């Protein structure tokens, strides 16, 4: 296999950072997050999974979708200027698959979302295969693999201290360009250690479980915050609202929103179809495993386990899926 040594890889990444926006895993406070990197010293190579997904580089937590200027005779509406190219390094296969899940809605369902589409088209993905599955990971139960290469442009696999590198798409090949690679012998580590088979019910089996008291009992401890939806790589609900920057300048913002928030569905008159947190928690699971696949194709979960790791009250998606299956 063609490979780069660790030092060579870091040097190549720093070179990329010099000519493009490079986003990679870096330490921020006590967490590891995908952030812009400029120097190789900032890049973390030994990590399990970042604490937030890479979705903010395609669906930013906040973005201005329109610029509006108040004029004497009305308004002038402008769209934001186009973004430059970006490279995301160190993308785990689950996070890369999550982009395909979002594509099903943002690209493939008419009309395509132009903001997401532009970022997606201008981003090159450098994947990094997992050495092993984490305690909370269950990607294999969703038909994914911790070394899946099909969702990235370039795939890196750690092997005996070197990084085997393979171009998956023409975009990846172009990025790799004339980078110097050496041959390396050996077999990548088996990432399927700690693989856990979690029962994922097919779409047709969800309706009969809708009215089960299971949901009320589960939701007793739920705090109805937004944490799970924000750390999730496939959750995409957003809000749109104008903000007045001055008496002449207005921005129309799009920002992350969450179906778990109590007022998420409340309309101006006060009516709220999901007033109880049990209904909202239930809707989140149904949206991911029952509605999204019916509407757009893929199940809206990649088994990354971030919601499991971070939920302050231990609402565990694996436990939920196992519990539902047993009903």
């Amino acid at each position, binding site marked *: 296999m063609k490979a780069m040594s660790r030092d060579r890889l870091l040097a190549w990444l720093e070179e990329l950072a010099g000519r493009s926006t490079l986003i990679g895993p870096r330490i921020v406070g006590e967490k590891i997050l995908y952030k812009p990197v400029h120097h190789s010293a900032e890049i973390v190579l030994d990590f399990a999974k970042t*604490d937030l997904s890479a979705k903010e580089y395609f669906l930013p*937590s906040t973005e201005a979708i329109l610029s509006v200027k108040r004029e004497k005779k009305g308004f002038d509406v402008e769209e934001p200027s186009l973004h430059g190219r970006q490279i995301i390094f160190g993308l785990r296969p689950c996070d890369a698959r999550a982009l395909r899940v979002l594509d099903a809605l943002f690209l493939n369902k008419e009309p395509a979302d132009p903001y997401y589409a532009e970022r997606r088209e201008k981003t090159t993905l450098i994947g990094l295969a997992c050495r092993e599955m984490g305690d909370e990971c269950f990607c294999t139960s969703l038909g994914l693999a911790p070394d899946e290469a099909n969702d990235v442009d370039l795939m890196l696999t750690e092997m005996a201290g070197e990084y085997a590198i393979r171009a998956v798409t023409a975009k990846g090949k172009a990025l790799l360009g004339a980078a110097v690679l050496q041959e390396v012998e050996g077999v990548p580590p088996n990432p399927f250690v700690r693989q856990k088979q979690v029962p994922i019910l097919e779409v047709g089996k969800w309706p009969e479980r809708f009215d089960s008291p299971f949901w009320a009992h589960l939701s007793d401890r739920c705090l109805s915050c937004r*944490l799970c939806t924000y750390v999730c790589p496939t959750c995409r609900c957003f809000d749109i609202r104008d903000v007045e920057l001055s008496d002449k300048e207005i921005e129309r913002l799009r920002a992350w929103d969450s179906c778990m928030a109590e007022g998420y569905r409340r309309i101006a008159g006060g009516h709220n179809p999901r007033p109880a947190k049990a209904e909202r928690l239930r809707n989140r699971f149904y949206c991911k495993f029952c509605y999204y696949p019916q509407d757009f194709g893929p199940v809206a979960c990649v088994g990354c386990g971030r919601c499991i790791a971070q939920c302050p009250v*231990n609402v565990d998606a694996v436990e939920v899926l196992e519990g539902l299956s047993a009903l």
Partner: protein
Amino acid sequence: MIEQIRDKARELLESKQISCFIGYERGTRGKTHPAFIYNPQEVGRLVWDESCTHNLTVYLHQFKNPVKRGEPPPRVGILLKPCDTRSLNVLFHEKQIDRARVYVVGLACEGVKGNGRLAGRCQRCSERLPLVYDLLLGEKPEPTGREDYAEVADLEAMSPKERLAFWAREFERCIRCYACRQACPACYCFECVAEQLDPPWMGIAIDLSQKQFFHVMRAYHLAGRCAGCNACEEACPMEIPLSLLNRKIAKELEALFGYKVGQDAITPPPLATFKKEEEVPL
């Protein structure tokens, strides 16, 4: 102690003195999480050990309304540590929770641990016993003998410019998930000012200025009400040291008014009271 907790819960449920007992149970992956026991046969689920960090007082808000119209609100039993009882006193004083509708099993507490380390608030705990209870379990542990506000010393040593940079660095990571607010027993507004859109005080943007505004504003809304249970910081997915804000404010309040939060349900908090001695000539 766990058997005493389970026995009491069973007795209260069987005699229908309560309709639910809120405690802790074993969760997944070595974690403990809040438990809601409705059936006396299930009290075996209850556990008590040093992993029981959550402040369960926050769940009393969901039992405030009657289940059926015309009935009184449900009576619940709850397991509380000394720090948790401070926040319960705040809720009693603010008339959010009716004392008669709660049966408190109060625990003498040696401290809880997170990541193998004794929690900060436990290292300097001055109560050691619950401040309000219907049943007290456990022997009073040794006093910690620790100075109360040592953890804000580093913050105080910073110049205002350094402090601003410190908090900007911390809040940059914030994702405005509101886990801190939702875990806090004292944050019970129907519509938080952070989510009001008329006017849009904080708008919808998840950017540094709105995030800083939210956290500082929340700390001020909690001044004199924050019991220091640290549920906010423990809930935060980005490990932001939120308690430093609240502790600094608590330190100032104690110095100015000699006030410590949640010691009882009667003493009015200084920011909600005015004393004649405080009158300043115009």
